[in-house]
């Protein structure tokens, strides 16, 4: 297990390194030099000598790899720069925005897990029943719905016609109000990939159910309930878990749309706002941070899977790559 953790950690580090190089290259491709970004229009009025001096001070004459190393160390130490539009430190802006996003993603995970466990297991056990067909149709529809449009339709129904749920912002007045504000965005975010979860669980429950060891358990007279939760479910939960790790990036992507729609003051709406205002330091920080979260998330999920199922460890150690 230790060997697995070390090699998997090494892999995650390499991916993070490559990702940060990509981000750095990207920053360099942005319009305008870093000096211009710092001094704005004044740079045009400066003398040639001053411009050279500024470039030297900022380290722009050094080879690219030294510049990258300096930038990367700076990022690690929390030097994320200041916003172009508000002048506020990016670090602080991110710190404010990250909490609402985490709440939203956790709340959406509750919807995803509860609904997909329920429908996935039931349809897996009763394949080709009416419920199974209905769930398949619903899954297809949810896979094809643009999530922002689904959110609009929910708003139309719950906020315009029924007038029971608010359409924007965080709830400030007590827990009831807070929940009211949370429920629609979390549901939209949670439901957008639920079709995949249900189908994974359904197929694996169905396949495991037919395995010989399950028939052996039945023959020994073990109750169906025990077989399901102690034997079938753990087997089916592995692909489910690893899909969860993979879909973290989809969920963060979804949160950009959902947060923008519901004026939820999180990382997603911050990233879009900063992109529209050409506020590159903020946008870059959000991208780097989301990337790190996704890499960390899939690392943790892989560890959990390897801990549950020793076969998963062998796969990486044999060096087949994925």
């Amino acid at each position: 297990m230790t060997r697995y953790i070390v090699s998997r950690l090494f892999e995650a580090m390499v991916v993070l390194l490559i990702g940060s190089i990509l981000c750095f290259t990207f920053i360099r491709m942005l319009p305008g030099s870093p000096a211009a970004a710092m001094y704005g229009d004044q740079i045009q009025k400066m003398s040639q000598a001053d411009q050279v001096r500024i470039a030297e001070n900022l380290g722009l004459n050094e080879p690219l790899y030294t510049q990258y190393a300096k930038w990367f160390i700076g990022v690690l130490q929390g030097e994320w720069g200041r916003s172009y539009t508000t002048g506020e430190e990016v670090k602080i802006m991110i710190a404010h925005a990250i909490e609402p996003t985490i709440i939203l993603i956790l709340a959406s995970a509750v919807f995803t897990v509860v609904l997909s466990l329920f429908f996935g297991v039931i349809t897996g056990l009763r394949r080709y029943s009416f419920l199974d067909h209905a769930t398949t149709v619903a899954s297809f529809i949810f896979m094809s719905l643009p999530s922002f449009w689904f959110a609009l339709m929910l708003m139309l129904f719950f906020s315009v016609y029924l007038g029971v749920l608010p359409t924007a912002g965080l709830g400030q007045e007590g827990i009831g109000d807070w929940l009211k504000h949370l429920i629609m965005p979390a549901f939209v975010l949670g439901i957008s990939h639920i079709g995949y979860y249900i189908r994974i669980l359904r197929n694996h429950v169905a396949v495991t159910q037919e395995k010989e060891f399950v028939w052996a358990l039945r023959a020994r007279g073990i109750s169906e309930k025990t077989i399901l939760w102690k034997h079938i479910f753990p087997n089916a939960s592995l692909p489910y878990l690893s899909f969860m790790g993979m879909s973290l990036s989809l969920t963060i992507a979804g949160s950009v749309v959902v947060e923008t729609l519901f004026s939820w003051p999180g990382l997603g709406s911050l990233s879009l706002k900063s992109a529209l205002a050409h506020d590159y330091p903020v946008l870059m920080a959000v991208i780097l941070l989301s990337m790190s979260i996704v890499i960390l998330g899939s690392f943790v999920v892989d560890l959990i899977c390897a801990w549950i199922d020793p076969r998963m460890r062998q796969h990486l150690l044999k060096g087949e790559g994925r």
Partner: protein
Amino acid sequence: MRGKRKWFVNVLLCYLLILLLVTFLAPVLTPYDPLSIGLAKTLQPPSAAHLFGTDELGRDVLTRLLYGGRISLTVGAAAMMMAIVIGAGFGVISGFLGGVVDRIMMRILDALLSIPSILLMIGIQVLIPASLLSVVVIIGMTSWMPIARLIRTEILSLKGETFIQASVVVGASSSQLLTRHLLPQCLPTIIVMSISGVSHAILSEATLSFLGIGIPPHEPSWGNMLMGAQSYLLSGAWWIALFPGLLITCTVLAVTYLGDVLQDRFALPQLKKGGRS
């Protein structure tokens, strides 16, 4: 079961065919201009004259839907083709060369895949000015990664097959191996991926345009018709938002389902995002 599915597939095919026909015949079918503004008849609910109502500038929603379909479908097809070319190229090189090159290329792929797709799109969008072409490029450049991974796996497993080894033994060159043996074998995968690529691209275009970083608002697309819809929706003008969304959903549903059927037909293993099976 089988018979039911065939019937449904035919319905979907007819739907797509009709959709293509009406969007490309739009100028003949509708008396209205999708761009002309009529301030005397803004935000009219559906009526006999305007079947799907009019929008906030008095433009006929149905007309704009038909013209918008041209853009959305074109973007979908073009972006898919770009993604297939980049993805298949990357996957073939990575899988064929193997070794260190393969490992480095796969880690680059991992890094790109860990950036949430919309953030990647937003990032690239900053670099190129918004236009029809830029939307195609953005979607193409951000959706080739799953294709690359799948093609690479396919090439890797094909390389172990006896008929490939036999061709190597009789002295086939690398380019012969690739064009005559490996790529044709990947064709079913590429076809299925390109179909799911179209639905992904249509959805992405809609999302980008809705967020205001896709197709510029002047020319209609299914996504940017929904752009301002939120505020009008809250004041009760439901028709502006309902119809474009329904059309996107139906189209994506049809394409996704057909892709799924083809996947079964080719008996391919799990595809796309590792999820669908």
